[in-house]
């Protein structure tokens, strides 16, 4: 049912629409033919018909036709301006403009809705150009301006609505010959601004018209009965004749009176502000800050004229900021003039003075103001000229000095009195920097306490007239240094503030500040406190109750004066010395008083890795007693890196502290108990803090720093003592003494080892003959055979060492899997090692397990510095034994299938035969085929096989025996035997050392020790 109804409604609607369409088309066509045939004799009708056609076309959504006919109507209407004389002149123009406005609105709307923004803007431009000049008669000018304002407002609003719906702003190039439109013309803000502008024009001319009307006093009640006629833009008087109402045409005079009476109802100012605010906000959103500022300025002027000073000031301050930043002095002058007037009207003395001073100090010259500004155009500050600056200067100084005779000031309630003194402050960013700039430079960067240091205070002012300063106060961060410079030309002010009593007062012959000329004053200050001494403020007193506090600036880092930096003026240095002007600083470093205490290190190293190295530190007071002394100890990497942070290559671990401060001991000259709980003793790995007891003049105190090196490394030891030379800590200054020492940590001993086999015995180790890469193969030891390990220790330090013991110790986890025979006793009574000397110890090892990875353990060496020759006073190490460990490499243990040992006497005698036996022991369960050969030797004759192949039974021994006669004496090479195992295809020879024998020429007679003893006894 509902659906049916809906369908019916739809159909009904379309039927009506169709009908209406047809009707309007016919109607339109009918009128259009009339227009085309020009079958009428008045332009009015032409316009009317065109409008009708266009409206009908609009009904039919035929936008192109609508637009065309609206345009026709518009152009016909424009032609009527000079020709029509139907109505009195003023009303005629009003009518034409009203119709034109209507047509223009239609056309603009059509264009904007069609997305043709550029065309719409161009159209508006033409519209504006063709009607702008049609001002009309003098007393009706305000009507024209009102109309103009409305054109702009309406177009702005149209543009705003269309911008919201379509964002297709023209991307065409703007401002060129091809496209004379510019960016702002697409912005509603631009039109709002002009709407406000014309409204302002309207208000001005309206006021004139109103005053003229009031002057002639012709206001009568006839205007009250005027009403809009039924035709647009026409007005008529309504005549009330009882029950009949009739319209009567107006004469222009009546119409103007009516219009003025109507106009009186409107508050144009409010409207202007609203329009300007829209433009202002819109421009601000577009980041067009200068346009926005102009709107803001106009708005502020509006507020100002309405006596709304709060709003005006807020806007003006913002604008003044922009003009200051960009250096537009004339604009700033105008803005400041308004601001000054605002503050005067609000009785804000401080602001009035600030703005006045800034105005007076602006770079405005007479030469600029050649074109004398009309007094109406220039704001309350008056024309921007040098003379006006002087006037303002005199006014403001008249105010602060309490003088009279200045009109501006006497008209206001501005007063500066003792109860209400005026204190201004300027800093780096303050606009008052132009008024007074203080540059302060210490002549020296580093100054000694208690000695006078020179300081130059320079002042610069851009005020147009010379200013006399009554008194200058220079303030430092150390208030004892503050001083006052009194102008001796002026009588000293009777009321010196209480805070200044006791301050140093200097006298200066003159404190006159000439325009753009530095006033340089050089005085001495005597700092007492060490640390930074900085000049903070220079306070200039210029009247009985007026001071300017100026933040001190360093000449080295002083910025150019704002605004004045663009002027072509003579620039001078704040100080006489140009070097000081480039480098002078307002702050200086006051040194500490010289310390009267010595810090002595008792040792210089080098230290040995592993030992507890002692460094005695002595604090010797020379002429200062020491109170609350603190000894700070720091260990620093010599390379300047962090405090023992791991190097890049080394992984971080707790061992990263290669050197450690173990403690501070042996506090000589005092008991440990003397260190009360309040006394500090804080030791960290690389940092220590120790309290020093109270020491009288000439006393000594010492302690020992205990350091331990874990790895060889040079370090820097920093020790600093901070103390008070006075028991009263509050008043006296802390003094610091620093001392540093580079200490090297060195390796004390170099431990090396060597494996050997028993003399003239050679086991066949298969791993040695295998063609494997040597690098990944551990050295092999034969299983159950004796191997000899020689461990040698070399003293590589520069001091003699004493060894206590050397042993091979297993690591905690692993068990010993070999038999170890220690070559000697554990205690080495007199093992003194001078530098470079070597100590060796022999161990015998018999591996018992066949393994590829035999843990041998590590060599443990206990040693200490040898004190026998060392002087105890400079001894730097404790007498504890130091344990140094050196890991032995892992070994491979394997069974040797064959062992060959060579037997021959320890020596031979020339011509005396001896037996030379080669034993081949087969340790396997297999029959071993062994080839052997003997090479002849020059010095020997031998009996036996030169070469043969023998079979050695399992677990048995084969002996090849030779008888050898030596033919030459001396160290002789025995005939070398080469044995080759066929099974393992491995040949091996005894080493050359093992096959060497000494041949005596004849039988020697040895004297043994026992025989010698007997001999001696016998004698």
């Amino acid at each position: 049912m509902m659906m049916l109804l809906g369908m019916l409604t739809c159909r009904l609607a379309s039927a009506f629409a169709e009908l209406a369409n047809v009707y309007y088309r016919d109607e339109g066509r009918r009128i259009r033919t009339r227009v085309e045939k020009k079958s009428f004799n008045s332009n009015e009708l032409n316009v009317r018909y065109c409008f009708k056609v266009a409206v009908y076309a609009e009904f039919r959504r035929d936008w192109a036709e609508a637009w065309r006919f609206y345009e026709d109507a518009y152009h016909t209407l424009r032609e009527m301006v000079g020709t029509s004389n139907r109505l009195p002149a003023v009303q005629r123009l009003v009518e034409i403009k009203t119709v034109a406005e209507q047509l223009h609105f239609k056309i603009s709307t059509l264009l904007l809705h069609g997305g043709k923004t550029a065309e719409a803007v161009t159209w508006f431009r033409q519209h504006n150009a063709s009607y702008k000049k049609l001002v009309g008669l003098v007393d009706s000018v305000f009507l024209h301006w009102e109309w103009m304002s409305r054109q702009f407002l309406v177009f702005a609003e149209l543009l705003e609505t269309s911008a919201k719906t379509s964002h297709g702003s023209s991307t065409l190039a703007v401002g060129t010959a091809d496209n004379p439109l510019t960016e702002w013309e697409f912005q509603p803000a631009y039109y709002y601004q002009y709407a406000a502008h014309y409204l302002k024009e309207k208000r001005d001319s309206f006021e004139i018209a109103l005053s003229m009307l009031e002057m002639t006093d012709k206001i009568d009640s006839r205007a009250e009965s005027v009403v809009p006629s039924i035709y647009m833009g026409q007005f008529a008087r309504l005549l009330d004749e009882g029950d009949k109402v009739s319209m009567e045409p107006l004469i222009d005079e009546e119409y103007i009176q009516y219009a003025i009476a109507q106009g009186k109802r409107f508050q144009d100012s409010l409207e202007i502000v609203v329009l300007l605010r829209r433009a202002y906000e819109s421009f601000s959103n577009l980041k067009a800050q200068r346009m926005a500022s102009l709107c803001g300025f106009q708005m502020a002027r509006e507020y100002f004229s309405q006596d709304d000073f709060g709003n005006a000031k807020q806007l003006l301050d913002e604008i003044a900021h922009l003009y200051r930043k960009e250096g537009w002095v004339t604009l700033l002058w105008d803005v400041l003039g308004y601001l000054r007037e605002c503050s005067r009207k609000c009785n804000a003395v401080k602001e009035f003075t600030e703005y006045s001073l800034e105005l007076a100090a602006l770079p405005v010259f007479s030469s600029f103001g050649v074109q004398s500004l009309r007094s109406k155009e220039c704001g309350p500050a008056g024309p921007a000229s040098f003379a006006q600056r002087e006037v303002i200067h005199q006014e403001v100084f008249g105010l602060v000095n309490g003088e009279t005779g200045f009109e501006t000031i006497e008209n206001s309630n501005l007063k500066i009195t003792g109860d209400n003194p005026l204190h201004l402050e300027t800093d780096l960013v303050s606009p008052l920097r132009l008024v007074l700039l203080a540059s302060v430079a210490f002549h020296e960067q580093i100054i000694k306490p208690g000695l006078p240091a020179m300081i130059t205070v320079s002042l610069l002012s851009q005020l147009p007239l010379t200013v006399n300063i009554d008194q200058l106060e220079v303030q430092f961060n150390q208030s004892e240094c503050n001083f006052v410079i009194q102008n001796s030309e002026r009588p000293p002010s009777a009321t010196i503030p209480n805070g200044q009593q006791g301050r140093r007062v200097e006298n200066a012959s003159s404190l006159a500040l000439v325009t753009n000329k530095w006033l340089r004053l050089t005085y001495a200050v005597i700092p007492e406190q060490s640390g930074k001494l900085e000049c903070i403020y220079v306070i200039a007193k210029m009247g009985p109750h007026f001071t300017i506090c100026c933040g001190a600036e360093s000449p080295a880092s002083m910025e150019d004066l704002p605004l004045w930096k663009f002027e072509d003026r003579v620039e001078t240095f704040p100080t006489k010395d140009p070097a000081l002007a480039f480098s002078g600083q307002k702050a200086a470093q006051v040194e500490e008083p010289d310390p009267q205490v010595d810090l002595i290190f008792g040792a210089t190293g080098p230290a040995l890795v592993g030992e507890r190295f002692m460094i005695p530190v002595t604090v010797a007071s020379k002429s200062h007693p020491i109170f609350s002394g603190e000894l700070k100890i720091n260990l620093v990497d010599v390379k300047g890196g962090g405090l023992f942070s791991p190097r890049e290559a080394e992984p971080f671990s707790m061992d990263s502290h290669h050197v450690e401060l173990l403690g501070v001991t042996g506090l000589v000259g005092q008991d440990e108990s003397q260190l009360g709980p309040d006394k500090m003793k804080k030791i960290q790995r690389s940092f220590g803090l120790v309290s020093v007891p109270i020491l009288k003049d000439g006393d000594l105190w010492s302690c020992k720093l205990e350091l331990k090196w874990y790895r060889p490394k040079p370090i820097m030891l920093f020790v600093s003592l901070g103390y008070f030379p006075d028991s009263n800590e509050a008043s006296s200054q802390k003094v610091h003494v620093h001392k540093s020492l580079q200490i090297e940590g060195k390796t004390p001993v170099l431990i090396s080892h060597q494996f050997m086999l028993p003399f003239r015995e050679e086991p066949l180790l298969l791993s040695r003959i295998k063609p494997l890469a040597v690098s990944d193969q551990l050295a092999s030891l034969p299983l159950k055979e004796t191997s000899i390990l020689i461990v040698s220790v070399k003293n590589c330090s520069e001091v003699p060492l004493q060894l206590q013991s050397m042993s091979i110790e297993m690591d905690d986890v692993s068990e010993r899997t070999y038999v170890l025979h220690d070559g000697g006793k554990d205690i080495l009574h007199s093992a003194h090692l001078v530098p470079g000397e070597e100590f060796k110890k022999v161990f015998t090892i018999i591996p018992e397990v066949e393994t590829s990875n035999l843990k041998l353990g590590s060599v443990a060496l206990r040693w200490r510095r040898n004190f026998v020759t060392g002087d105890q006073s400079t001894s730097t190490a404790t007498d504890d034994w130091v344990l140094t460990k050196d890991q032995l490499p892992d070994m491979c243990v394997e069974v040797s299938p064959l062992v060959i040992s060579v037997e021959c006497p320890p020596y031979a005698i020339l011509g005396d035969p001896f037996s030379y036996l080669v034993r081949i022991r087969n340790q396997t369960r297999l029959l071993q085929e062994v080839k052997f050969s003997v090479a002849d030797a020059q010095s020997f004759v031998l009996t036996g096989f030169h070469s043969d192949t023998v079979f050695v039974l399992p677990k048995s021994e084969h002996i090849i025996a030779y008888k050898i006669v030596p033919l030459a004496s001396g160290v002789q090479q025995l005939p070398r035997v080469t044995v080759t195992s066929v099974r393992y295809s491995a040949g091996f020879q005894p080493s050359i050392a093992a096959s060497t024998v000494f041949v005596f020429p004849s039988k020697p007679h040895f004297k043994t020790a026992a025989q010698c003893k007997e001999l001696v006894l016998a004698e």
Partner: protein
Amino acid sequence: MIVCVAVVGHQNNPLYIQSFTEADDALKLHHIVHCSLDVVDERVNNPKKSGLTLNETFLGLLYPAENYKVYGYLTNTKVKFILVTTDLDVRDADVRNFFRRFHAAYVDAVSNPFHVPGKKITSRTFAERVSNIVKSFGFNSVG
């Protein structure tokens, strides 16, 4: 008729501003010149949108003020020249030609060894020359 010409430094500070009107509207012209800097900024920051070609110094019509037209020119040292004219129908070529001559005058003025770059131009010769260029504006478009 040209009513005002201005040279604006790269910090948007006025270096030279001279109006050539009998009417007392110097302040208004200053405002117009100052506001035109917004358009210059806009054009320079969006060269694509404003269709400026590379190395083009002439910025074209900046905006039409009430009775004036404002033209801009940007040198390669970011110094801006602003021209305010009351002529409503100005030929582009005339304006270009004006700016070209004005630029030459400016270059000569700042080439003075006694001129400190960035400071206001106070040279009288420059002022005279500018005044001549302004007077001849539009008459000899060939220049």
